[in-house]
């Protein structure tokens, strides 16, 4: 009898212990792209593990496969990710298809205010429908497409003199898109220290989002708009405006006359390679990579400097960056929300910035000395003031792939004119919106 009682007590104790462990110490999996900031987040999250008792696992997927892999996971109701730092364009699909947990109640109960974050990032990374106070993510990683250049080359007297002679202007950080092209053309094929160098590395990748992100960096400064009236999907005259056509022709000219040979399918990795191997004078890439570039022993430090995407008719930068969401299929939502609460803490946000992540928290961005904290910090702030994002509709993938095709066909494959490419893009997008019943 005693033995039976002891056995029962032991069984109940063990069961309680197991339950206690499962409810208090969870194994959380955070999914993101495989890149420099992700490594910083692994380090940062050790603090969360220490404070919460939960353990963190990470699933990082290389950028070219990130969307494919993660959207497949979400669409199949997969339980791999408890937390997902998903691209800004996924927010519409994440919200409408029920992949992301709506965070309003949680934010209210925990006193997390979206007013504490940069408005552009809240708008782009968190809200759906756009601009409404319905939050499906916390801004996690502010980002935009920017530029970096060989400061050491730009500072050399012989090169400055040659530029002055060739253009009649002083060589320096470009103030407009056209000036940037002029500088890139000046460097194209030039011999520096016995090595042939090229103007700039730009995005031309076909498969995922590369050429769209690159071309919009020209389209936005020219004044490109997706719709004449926001929310009406009236694209005729906006997408194919005279300014948009000129911007696309400009991007093609840039590609044809000022980029290294063979860069027909290049994105983030290729841009970094071209710069680090000393092939190009300038390159475009996401601000997320700038800390790593600055720290590079060969081309970083005093050899590199950064500038925001130059304006033309107006200022404009292509938005990158992501918000962090709780996946609705996760069985560990409470622990995941704990992570979001921890991450929203201003002290953690400050640490995030110091470790190489781009915080979107006002306490960091408006803090004393932020602009001096890194050589690209001021440019980052400037960029975030004028960012524009691609469609964030649930059908964003269809819209994106259509643009990838039309732009690549025109810029790289010499098919048709800029006007035709943009006209056909409107046709493609109209078909998508008609299918969705939005037109």
């Amino acid at each position, binding site marked *: 009898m005693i033995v039976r009682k002891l056995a029962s007590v032991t069984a109940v104790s063990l069961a309680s212990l197991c339950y206690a462990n499962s409810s208090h110490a969870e194994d959380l999996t955070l999914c993101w792209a495989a890149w420099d900031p992700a490594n910083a987040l692994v380090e940062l999250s050790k603090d969360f593990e220490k404070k919460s008792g939960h353990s963190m696992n990470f699933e990082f997927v290389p950028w070219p496969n990130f969307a494919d892999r993660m959207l497949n996971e979400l669409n199949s109701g997969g339980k791999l990710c408890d937390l997902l730092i998903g691209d800004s364009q996924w927010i519409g699909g994440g919200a409408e298809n029920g992949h992301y947990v709506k965070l309003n109640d949680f934010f209210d109960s925990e006193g997390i205010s979206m007013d504490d974050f940069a408005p552009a990032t809240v708008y782009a990374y968190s809200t759906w429908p756009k601009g409404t106070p319905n939050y499906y993510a916390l801004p996690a990683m502010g980002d935009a497409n920017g530029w970096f250049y060989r400061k050491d080359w730009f500072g050399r007297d012989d090169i400055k003199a040659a530029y002055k002679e060739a253009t009649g202007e002083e060589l320096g950080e470009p103030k407009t898109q056209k000036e940037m092209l002029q500088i890139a053309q000046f460097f194209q094929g030039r011999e520096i220290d016995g090595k042939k160098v090229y103007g700039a590395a730009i995005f031309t990748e076909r498969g995922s989002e590369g050429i769209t992100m690159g071309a919009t960096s020209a389209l936005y400064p020219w004044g490109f708009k997706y719709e004449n009236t926001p929310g009406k999907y009236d694209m005729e005259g906006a997408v194919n405006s005279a300014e948009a056509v000129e911007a696309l022709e400009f991007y093609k000219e840039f590609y044809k006359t000022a980029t290294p040979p063979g860069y027909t399918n290049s994105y983030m990795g290729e841009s970094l390679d071209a710069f680090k191997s000393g092939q190009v004078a300038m390159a475009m890439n996401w601000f997320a990579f700038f800390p790593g570039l600055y720290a590079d022993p060969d081309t970083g430090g005093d050899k590199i400097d950064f500038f925001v995407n130059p304006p033309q008719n107006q200022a404009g930068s292509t938005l990158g960056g992501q918000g962090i969401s709780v996946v609705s299929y996760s069985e560990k939502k409470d622990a995941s929300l704990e992570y979001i609460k921890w991450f929203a803490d201003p002290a953690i946000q400050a640490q995030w910035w110091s470790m190489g992540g781009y915080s979107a928290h006002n306490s960091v961005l408006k803090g004393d000395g932020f602009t001096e904290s890194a050589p690209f910090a001021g440019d980052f702030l400037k960029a975030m003031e004028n960012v524009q994002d691609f469609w964030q509709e649930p059908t964003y993938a269809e819209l994106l792939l259509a643009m990838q*095709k039309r732009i*690549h066909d025109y810029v790289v494959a010499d098919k048709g004119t800029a006007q035709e490419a943009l006209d056909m893009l409107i046709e493609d997008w109209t078909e998508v919106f008609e299918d969705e019943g939005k037109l």
Partner: protein
Amino acid sequence: MTIDRLASATPVRVARKIKGLSDRAIAWIFVGPTIFLLLAINIFPLIWTINLSFTNYKANRINREVKYIGLRNYERILGDSDIWLSMQATAHFLFWTLFFQVLLGFALAWLINRKFRGNDLWTTIIVLPMMLSPAVVGNFWTFLYQPQIGLFNYIIAFFTGADPSSFEMLGSVDLAPWSIVIVDTWMWTPFVMLICLAGLRSIPDYIYEAAEIDRASKLRQFFTITIPMVLPFLMLAVLFRGIENFKMFDLVVQLTGGGPGSVTEMASINLKREAFEKWRTGYSSAFAIILFVTVFGLASIYVKALNKVKER
């Protein structure tokens, strides 16, 4: 006596031993799992795909109402110029890879079939490319084709005197379709060679000896003995490679990703984009059915022709 022995050796019907089960039932027990698997992984998906091809279903929009839209997906596909361009790209790739692989594969087999020292070593070296993964092949050919550091460009430049970085195999609209043909030919010619070699080695020596006695020239022996007797093997190789190349995906994705623009976007790449990137499940199902019918139809006609050649 013999008949009696045979009769006694015949086992008692199994069904009698297992009460209540006929021979037919036992046969079904054995065949059943295989048939079930076939139905589950081949027939059911096919029927389901046909069903989906008449709908507006999108696998990423689970909350959206699924509507039957008749033949609209088929109409859109057949009227879509991009689809026809991808079919053209597939046809170009298919025709030229088969042409070069048959030509070179047969030539190599004919040479390897000669008796010479190091014959086995050369055979092993030649078949190495087909043992590699297409992903690996795609990656290293991307480097070989690199205009600034690529070996391929340097070799061409060495013979032509052109600047190595003056042409881009993967980035040029004119050269990219040929660049993928070159890589596929490099990789799969050994496969055709092996099949042709089997054909050549199956020809009995006495046929050539008889031809020699009849004073037939080497050229005549080649056209009247070698080619006809290897033809069934060659046709089999064409069938295998044709089906494989019709659905070519991995190698081309590694090399060009379908670019520049869409000039190397094969039907399979287009299908994958529609199905798993744009998530137009109904539309892509219709496209898959069209491709299936095309391959199935062409393969059936071809197999009939192959059987006729064999019967000769």
